[in-house]
């Protein structure tokens, strides 16, 4: 079989493979060109070949943007290596550009000398102009700084399709297989197995066997083309050896999957059913899709509400009735839920709110990533309304943070905001599958305590008892009007309001005792420089600190998961560093939070371009800070 590669052997033309430690590849094309699928399949093949990897899908807000336009460009980037990979990569080693628009939009990210593969069939006069080029960039020397492989990919694809005997497919369907041709070529370029992709095509098009056959033919053709065609000497195949990763069973997981499954796991560990109530919004929608698929075998109910407000209210209603109510959304939707979240805090009912952040304000950048809802999460409510905020740092980490959000919501009878973002939702990484049977359950109780009063508190957690309607002997009323300490009856009494406000604050503050102390992810626990991050900047910050250490600069990485309440030792920990750099994808929200909590001096590094940090940006800022 063609795809039975023998590692260490040259390719079909006897070319030696150049061994490299890692590579960054971006597939870019029109929204309709299937770049996300191409990237996803390359990711799978890469994971199976034992590399560590990280991905960055980036697509336009429009579902069907006009063909050939720059704003219709969709791309998928993957960084993979023989070492630990923590980011999707700063600069591209390979760009696959399926049309002129994809080239013009992505060229700035390509390393000088890097390989650019283009479908020259797509460089028509019309599409060149549409992309904004005055003349054909393939012919005017503008790409001389790169290695360019220009191939008539569309023609080659058509030829491959025609070779499939008896396939009844339209011209359009044939052309669409060109992404598989390109994928085949890249699989050859990096010595990847085709088998998993072939399986995937067979499953995906099980009901359309002809489509499956032509796509497989295109994939094969692209692969063979690479393997047996003579090319300019500077274009040759690579080998990226497997990475040394901890042993175990792995799979690829996206943040959307991990957070959804984490919620299911969290509800299960609480021995509750999960009521996931939501309203579609990018980039949170996937959670609703994924959880709807799971259904009753997993004790999951999903509810597509009429709006975000109703989604939050229904989730609270479900918690009131004794299950775990969760609502998922993005910033604008969370803004709508705010009043309801206040009611959950006032009535002290468990509620998890997942905010897959996106660029703001308002509709902002729906498909781009940002972490600018930290203020909204920690402070964004009327009244003194404290709640818990946790943030996920990587796609896989969403699983554990979702469980943590469920645990705290149930144990402390409080709303918990779980922050993810557009990048985390869509990106995927190899995930060391945990042994779920080792997770400690935290069963919720609806039992009526002795001397039951709805607002009596557990002396340790300060949580009130969760007695639910349907329970004999527990009849009581709750609501948004201030409740009397203990009885929960309506109370407009001034002293009581002070007492209840204090209770609510002390309860949330006290959670700091129940969360892990802040660890240092990398580097010494005190010293010259701490780079402090939260959320999805984990990858770039970690690599940047790695790089700084390699460059001989003493540096540490602190990554905060529990953003409210903050870990008890955080203030002291920060005090042990001469310099603190806080890179974040907003205008400095964590920086403000840390300054207000610890009065510490720190340097904020804000970035709101809708894209993740580059490692080099953080390294540069850190060097400037410590070297002045």
């Amino acid at each position, binding site marked *: 079989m063609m795809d039975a590669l023998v590692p260490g052997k040259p390719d079909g033309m006897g070319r030696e493979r150049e061994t490299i430690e890692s590579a960054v590849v971006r597939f870019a094309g029109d929204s309709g060109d299937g770049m996300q699928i191409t990237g996803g399949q390359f990711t*799978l093949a890469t*994971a*199976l070949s*034992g590399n560590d990897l990280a991905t960055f899908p980036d697509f336009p807000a429009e579902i069907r943007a006009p063909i050939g336009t720059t704003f219709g460009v969709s791309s998928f980037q993957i960084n993979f290596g023989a070492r630990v990979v923590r980011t999707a990569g700063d600069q591209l080693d390979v760009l696959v550009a399926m049309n002129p628009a994809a080239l013009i939009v992505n060229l700035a990210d390509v390393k000088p000398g890097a390989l650019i593969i283009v479908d020259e069939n797509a460089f028509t006069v019309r599409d060149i102009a549409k992309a904004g080029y005055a003349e054909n960039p393939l012919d005017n020397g503008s790409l001389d700084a790169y290695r360019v492989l220009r191939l008539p990919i569309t023609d080659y694809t058509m030829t491959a399709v025609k070779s499939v005997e008896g396939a009844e497919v339209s011209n359009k369907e044939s052309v669409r297989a060109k992404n598989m041709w390109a994928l085949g070529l890249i699989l050859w370029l990096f010595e990847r197995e085709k088998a*998993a992709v072939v399986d995937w095509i067979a499953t995906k098009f099980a009901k359309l066997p002809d489509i499956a056959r032509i796509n497989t033919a295109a994939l094969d053709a692209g692969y063979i083309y690479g393997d047996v065609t003579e090319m300019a000497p500077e274009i040759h195949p690579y080998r990226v050896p497997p990475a040394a*990763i*901890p*042993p*175990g*069973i*792995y*799979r*690829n997981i996206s943040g959307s999957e991990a957070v959804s*499954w984490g919620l*299911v*796991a969290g509800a*299960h560990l609480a021995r509750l*059913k999960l*009521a996931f109530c939501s309203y579609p919004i990018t980039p949170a929608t996937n959670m609703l899709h994924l959880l709807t698929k799971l259904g*009753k*075998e*997993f*004790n999951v*109910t999903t*509810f597509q*509400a*009429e*709006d975000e*407000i*109703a989604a939050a*209210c*229904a989730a*609270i*209603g*479900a*918690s*009131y*009735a*004794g*299950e775990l109510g969760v609502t998922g959304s993005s910033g604008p939707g969370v803004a709508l839920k705010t009043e*309801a979240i206040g*009611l959950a805090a006032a*009535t002290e009912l468990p509620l998890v709110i997942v905010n897959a952040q996106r660029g703001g304000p308002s509709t902002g950048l729906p498909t781009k990533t940002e972490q600018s809802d930290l203020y909204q999460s920690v402070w964004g409510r009327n009244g003194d309304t404290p709640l818990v905020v946790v943030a996920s740092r990587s796609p896989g980490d969403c699983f554990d943070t979702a469980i943590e959000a469920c645990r705290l919501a149930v144990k402390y009878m409080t709303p918990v905001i779980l922050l993810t973002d557009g990048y985390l939702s869509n990106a995927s990484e190899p995930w060391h*599958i*945990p042994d*779920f*049977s080792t997770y400690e359950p935290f069963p919720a109780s609806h039992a009526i305590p002795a001397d039951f009063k709805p607002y009596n508190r557990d002396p340790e957690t300060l949580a009130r008892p969760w007695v639910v*309607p*349907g*329970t*004999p002997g*527990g*009849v*009581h*009323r*709750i*609501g*948004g*009007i201030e409740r009397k300490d203990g009885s929960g*009856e309506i109370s407009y009494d001034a002293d009581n309001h002070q007492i209840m406000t204090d209770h609510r604050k002390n309860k949330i503050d006290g959670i700091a005792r129940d969360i892990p102390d802040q660890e240092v992810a990398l580097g010494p626990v005190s010293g010259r420089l701490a780079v402090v991050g939260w959320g999805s900047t984990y990858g770039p910050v970690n690599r940047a600190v790695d790089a700084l250490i390699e460059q001989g600069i003493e540096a540490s990485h602190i990554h905060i998961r529990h953003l409210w309440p903050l870990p008890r030792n955080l203030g002291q920990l920060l005090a042990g560093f001469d310099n603190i750099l806080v890179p974040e994808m907003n205008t400095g929200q964590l920086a403000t939070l840390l300054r207000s909590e610890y009065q510490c001096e720190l340097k904020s590094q804000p970035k709101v371009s809708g894209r993740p940090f580059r490692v080099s940006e953080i390294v540069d800022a850190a060097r400037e800070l410590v070297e002045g």
Partner: protein
Amino acid sequence: MNLQTKLGAKDYASDQEVRWCPGCGDYAILRAVQKTLADNGADPANTVFFSGIGCASRFPYYMETYGFHTIHGRGAAFATGAKLANPDLDAWLVAGDGDSLAIGGNHLLHVLRRNVDIVYLLFNNEIYGLTKGQTSPASRLGTRSPTTPAGSRDEPVRAARFALGASATFVARAVDVQKDLSDILKRAHAHKGTGFVEILQNCIVFNDGVYDKLSNKKLAPDNTLKLVHGEPMIWGAERDKGLVFDIATMSPKAVSLGEGGVDASQLLVHDEHNLTLANMLATLDSIPGMPSPLGVLYSREAETFEARTRMDRAETASVEQKIGQLLNSGHTWAVA
């Protein structure tokens, strides 16, 4: 459930002091609801009253059942979520006209089309009571209020017609002081799905008398049409007025009965299951000279939200195993 002794209406009253203005129509409704629960032998532990915000929405505090006073306009969404978690709860919702038709219009629409099995009591006083008397979406044209000193100019929403437009499966109208209010409430409660009842309620402070014609013992007979399924539609102190459908104008018409008038056999007969008729009745009193129909305008059987979403709890051990399988699903690979 096993109540040792049957509870009386008073047993459904909580120990909280009722804080509506003296003379407010809400008192009569509270009594009727308590009587309904008593007559039904309702289990207080399985009964929940949800509400939004407004004078009407204080209702749950006064009931010796579970209760959840939520936020303005959204009571229906909370009730829906609770029924998602526990479909067996006996849930009621109390909401004002502002709560239901202004800020919460969206949720009313959707709770009806989902046919969530609750009783929805819309207390319509055609005014915002709690915020001191501004016009509501139900206020009649010309209503003077602090926000409409020259009289309101926006067309009022007709709650019953709105409900029918939202595919409600049960729509009734009643007056707060109506003696047989409890009978209508029982019908709404017995209905499988959303039992929507618009209760015309007098706000003695900010909109006093808007329903005098319907509640005043002398005026009511000539101004209300009591709907009885299968009976011809007749009203009037002398029971001398009847309703026919005039084909020429495609509209309802009042006729006189008896000598020189129309024979009762020619009158429209009320049919609760006829949507066309219900739509006509829902706006009947917007025609000058026509009575306000009271009683059940419409009912039909339909699948409930609970029937669609009910989910038995899967065994812990089996869920545990399923989650393990889920995590290991798709393409996996071993790193040695």
